[in-house]
């Protein structure tokens, strides 16, 4: 990995993210680019059209190489592919196969590559794990979120706690060797007890990986992300009301206690908290996601998807219509890359980004990364405040307290 002081050059894609923006129904807290209901499964269903468009984009991106449109200097097969959403497990297996075939043709997929599919546990959502495995999926990320029926209901989830176990069993039987569960904490109505119970039940199902997320109720409109070229869709009025009601039921102190509880329990169960929100049995870390924190080059396709090539962060606009119109113009016209935007990083913000992302990892960053003048004060402050500690090997990492208060440090680095 490059050191902070260097200005990393563009790199051929290490991984590829594919965004599949369809769900059976939309959860009110979710900010991802998602279309649901008739848009996803009904008469106006555009899944097949989207898959056609994705395949065109995959071809175009592979030919244009780096995200800024430079030719790919030394193309190499992808080490990771991540099919995220939305609910990619909804995808008909034929479509899944077409997408993966297109990726193999355009980029190539390295032997032993990690190919992750996000799945929901509900019977009407999880699809056919055997067929998914046969198509090449090696890793499943299951949106469990909670084991408490009342919490699942409040969160607008379609599955029951029992469905989570059923989904895992089916995946195991299909031969998928790496399974992750997502759980949410700081959920309205949640107690420390229900959280401890959920963790217990999650551990007992024997997943190789766990992602624990504090529920964050943001407002992408207020952040200016939902305009015509924005990478987010505006939340519905109902979702906005839901968030407004839920926010007062969240509690930072309770959330911090839940996080501490998880740190202890999962360590006991043999998991390594390798990233601020991610735990894995050794060897089961998400290689794709590590790519983000290590600032590897990750190509991306699909509405709202974000790519990075070492110096430019690029994204596609969220709107499906514009996306499809660009890639499938019809009338014999040539397809073009979909609308979107980009941010070119200067060396200062790249260095800050590198520190911030690196510190999310358990292994932290080299001590030398803090020797740059703008970071030295922050370093001293964070060590004295008990947020950072040095490890024996001249690296520094966040303490558990430091993880929970990491923005206090990060805001000083930016």
């Amino acid at each position, binding site marked *: 990995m490059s050191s902070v002081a260097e200005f990393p050059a563009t790199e051929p894609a290490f991984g590829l993210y594919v965004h599949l923006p369809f769900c059976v129904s939309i959860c009110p807290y979710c900010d991802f680019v998602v279309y649901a209901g008739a848009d996803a499964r009904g008469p106006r269903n555009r899944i097949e059209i989207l898959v056609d468009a994705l395949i065109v984009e995959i071809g175009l991106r592979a030919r244009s190489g780096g995200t800024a449109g430079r030719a790919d200097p030394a193309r190499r097969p992808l080490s990771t592919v991540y099919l995220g959403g939305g609910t990619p497990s909804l995808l008909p297996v034929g479509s899944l196969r077409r997408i993966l075939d297109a990726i193999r043709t355009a980029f190539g997929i390295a032997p032993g590559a990690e190919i992750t599919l996000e799945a929901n546990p509900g019977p009407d959502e999880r699809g056919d794990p055997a067929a998914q495995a046969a198509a090449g999926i090696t890793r499943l990320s299951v949106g469990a979120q909670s084991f408490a029926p009342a919490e699942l209901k409040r969160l607008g989830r379609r599955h029951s706690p029992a469905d989570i176990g059923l989904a895992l069993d089916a995946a195991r039987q299909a031969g998928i060797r790496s399974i992750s569960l997502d759980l949410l904490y700081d959920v309205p109505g949640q107690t420390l007890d229900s959280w401890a119970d959920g963790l217990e039940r999650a551990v007992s199902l024997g997943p190789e990986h766990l992602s624990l997320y504090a529920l964050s109720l943001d407002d992408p409109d207020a952040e200016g992300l939902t305009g015509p070229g924005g990478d987010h869709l505006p939340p519905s009025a109902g979702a906005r009301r839901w968030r407004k009601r839920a926010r007062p039921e969240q509690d930072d102190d309770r959330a*911090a206690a839940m996080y501490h509880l998880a740190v202890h329990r999962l360590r006991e169960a043999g998991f390594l908290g390798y990233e601020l929100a991610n735990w894995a049995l050794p060897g089961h870390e998400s290689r794709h996601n590590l790519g983000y924190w290590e600032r590897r080059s990750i190509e991306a396709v699909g509405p709202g998807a974000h790519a990075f090539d070492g110096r430019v962060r690029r994204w596609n606009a969220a709107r499906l219509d514009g996306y499809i119109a660009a890639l499938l113009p019809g009338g014999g016209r040539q397809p073009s890359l979909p609308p979107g935007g980009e941010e070119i990083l200067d060396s200062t913000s790249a260095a800050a980004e590198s520190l911030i992302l690196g510190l999310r990892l358990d292994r932290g960053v080299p001590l030398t990364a803090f020797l740059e003048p703008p970071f030295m004060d922050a370093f001293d402050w964070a060590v004295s405040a008990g947020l950072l500690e040095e490890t024996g090997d001249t690296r520094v990492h966040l303490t558990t307290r430091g993880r929970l208060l990491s923005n*206090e440090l990060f805001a000083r680095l930016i």
Partner: protein
Amino acid sequence: MKIPQERLRNFSIIAHIDHGKSTLADRLLEMTHTIEARLMTSQVLDSMDLEREKGITIKARAVRLDYLARDGRTYGLNLIDTPGHVDFSYEVSRSLQACEGAILVVDAAQGIEAQTLANVHLALREGLTIIPVINKIDLPSAQPDVVIEELENVLAIPREEVLLASAKEGIGIDAILEAIVERIPAPKGDPDGPLQGLIFDSHYDAYKGVVVYVRLASGTLHAHDTIRLMASGVESDLLELGVFRPQLVPVQALTAGEVGYVATGLKSVRDAQVGDTLTNAKAPASTPLPGYKEAKSLVFAGIYPLSGDDYPLLREAIERLHLNDGSFTYQPESSVALGFGFRCGFLGLLHMEIVQERLEREFSLDLIASAPSVQYRVVLIGNRGTLSVDNPAFFPNAGEIEAVEEPWVSLAVITPATYIGPLLELSTSRRGTFVGLEYLDPQRVLIRFELPLAELIIDYFDQLKSRSQGYASMDYEEIGYRAANLVKLDIMVAGEPVDALSLIVHRDRAATTGRQLTERLKELIPRQMFEVPIQAAIGSNVVARETVRALRKNVLAKCYGGDISRKKKLLEKQKEGKQRMKRVGSVEIPQEAFLAVLRIDDGAGR
């Protein structure tokens, strides 16, 4: 056209806010063709934006009207406008001194108000002829008979002298103009006598320097004279003189009895204060006109830029505003919490508000003002002398104090009788003493109190208005210093005193106020990385304590490809937030906390 002295009339208009003074002035201008109807903007005399918005007249203005009277002769009427707020009573008195008569305008639906009453008394003291006018008689709620009775009871004005009008509808305006000619005496004064001109207002002009507004009491001023200001002793070759129509129109000479302006070429309005006497440097008058007083600051506050980078801008803005308004004082001060700023003295609370608003508006500044204070006299122990303190931060510790004195005011409140109870309660809760009560008419009363000025300047006026549903009005004047049992209450955050939050309180109320303040601060100071105690203390004696619990969680829940740019923006926002905070020791306090505490208006008062 030169009009002889016997056909000059100098008058002003006395009215409460909203009783229609400016509208009446507009009608007089129209009827005398001073301003053509097509050029009329509403409220011509209120030329400052702020005045039009607040519906009040801040600075006096003057205008010359040429009126063809029923007797077939043309009279020169000088309307001298007066500020309509209690903070400016000295300026009002100087404007009145420049006149021989005053039109008293009273709203037919509202009746006479406290301040109007005070100004009429001022006018009577100056020997002015009063022309009583009941305005807004077109209103459905008008009760001219009740108001006439009130004028008779309160001011002994015979009912046959009262004119009825509606300035808005143009009713009764000609009768008012005739009354000005018939009832108000012409000015006296020898045109060949020694030059004496009363300065009743001034403004600063970038080209002409200080322009003073004068009423000549005697003598003649020529366009090329050298003038002297008798109180400041400054001399200057005058640049221009003229009259108000209402724009400035130069003339060659002004004679006794006339009203006009003199462009002095002076660089600071401080050199030509309202009330000073202008005379001829070559042949000066032996004595100045009576009544000159230096503008006196009653209310003091620190004014700071919200962003420390704006300090040089604030300095420039204050200097430039001061050229135009010499009635506030300023000197640099610095505060641990608020950085560099200025300690300013104002005529009153409204004056403070106006100065702050003008600085913000005319110079595009974001400002924060510390809690207003009065000037205390502190006698130190052991014959170490007396201190004048207008900033709580410099108030000595209790152990060094022999005695403290604070300024008191006499307060007149006029209110519908229904609100007597709540208003008595308000004043006693503010350490006030009741002096007396009289009925103006069956429904309305005049109540007199005496009250420490410090209690008045916090939010007394707002409270008065809210407890009387907007009906009560007030006026006050200073009545000197009285002994007080006061202590300094310090606020400490994480053990560090925060100078900008110190206040002077009555000893009996120190603990209550301390509790209210610490509770308020607890809500306003965001959680920090460690527990933060907030204490209120008198010297080393802690009277109240609250704790802001430590921050436990500030973290990005997830951070994948799509989150990085978005979350960086969020972190940048947090960073900007931190930069706007004031560091006191190791604690970051948002500016809003100071602001909110300073604007404490829930009766947490001192």
